[in-house]
């Protein structure tokens, strides 16, 4: 029997539907699907490389803008490279951070090699043990559709692991998406305008 899985595009569409004003950091495999799903590119960070530090970047953003949700779509391989960040996030305990780990069991960017512990490691177990306040696991589309909104609204740090199918052909080294650095510079500019208190214009 084949294990149930969720299509990455479907996951991204569901998250996009309920994101509101959230900042979304889309890492590795999720980048292209997120780009297709998102209608708020000014709040998106396309993240690649840097050895799985998307979750750490999300922690910094969540602490900086506590009134705005920060969602990170991470990969299982990326999370394994920066597993200690689960403890750092839980220790800082930002209520506005939600980490969604796409668990496809492979390093999609390098050709689909199996990640260590694929199929045996419990990412939800790691998150729960680290001290995340809300933890969920999804492997069926109907579960995802039902539970994603409550998860995104939960007081964080929140965590979900989502069993996804590997993206065919992996991920190209170069693509048309803006770089992570360009996204961060643009996001900084956007937040400095959007999160300015009402009435500040008069002071300029």
């Amino acid at each position, binding site marked *: 029997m084949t294990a149930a899985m969720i299509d990455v595009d479907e996951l991204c569409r569901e998250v996009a539907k309920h994101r509101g004003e959230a900042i979304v950091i889309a890492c590795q495999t999720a980048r292209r699907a997120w780009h297709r799903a998102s209608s708020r590119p000014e709040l998106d960070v396309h993240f690649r*490389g*840097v050895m799985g530090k998307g979750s*750490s970047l999300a922690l*910094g953003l969540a*602490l*900086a803008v506590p009134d705005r949700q920060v969602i990170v779509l991470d990969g299982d391989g990326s999370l394994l490279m920066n597993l200690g960040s689960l403890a750092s996030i839980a220790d*800082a305990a930002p209520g506005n951070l939600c980490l969604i780990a796409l668990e496809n069991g492979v390093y999609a960017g390098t050709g689909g090699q199996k990640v260590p512990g694929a199929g045996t490691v419990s990412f939800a177990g790691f998150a729960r043990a680290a001290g995340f306040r809300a933890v969920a696991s999804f492997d069926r589309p109907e579960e995802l559709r039902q539970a994603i909104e409550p998860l995104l609204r939960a007081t964080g740090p929140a965590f979900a692991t989502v069993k996804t199918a590997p993206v065919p052909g992996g991920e190209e080294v170069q693509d048309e998406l803006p770089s992570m650095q360009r996204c961060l510079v643009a996001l*900084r500019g956007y937040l400095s305008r959007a999160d300015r208190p009402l009435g500040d214009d008069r002071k300029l």
Partner: protein
Amino acid sequence: MTAAPRHFVTPRALVEALVGNGVTHVPYLPDSEHAATYDLLKDHPSIRLVRIAREGEALAIAAGLVAGGKRPLPMIQNTGFFESGDSIRGFGLAKEALPMVIAIGYRGWVAEGEMRDTAAVYTEPILKAWGIPYRTIAADSDLYLLARAFEEAERTQRLNAVLLVEDEHYASTQGR
């Protein structure tokens, strides 16, 4: 008789300099020589200490804080700076980057003579190789250089560094 010069930064003066420079957050992995700084920051009224599990997280967290309008100063030791290589590259060396300053504990630094600790030997050559401007803060009287580092980071919209000299007397007792 003149007292021998002290070649290290005292924790209280360092924290006062952080406050004076408007630092809001310190992503921090403590090292033995700067343990007292950790104690001063852990319950500080205006600076939030962000405990990290590994040094590579520090600059990533700082990048998020800067993107969100805050002024962090990640503090790690030079050994952790080596470990953080890909974070430094990814968040600090790109063509488009954020204005950030990183504080690096200068383990192994000596005021005079040859540095023997390889952590110290390779610190400045690596900063130079990566083109990261840096200033060495070897005593409390050098702490004004922190403001210079922040000014340069803002002006250039690039990563800047300060090297914080550690207590060489303490280090010498540790056999380094």
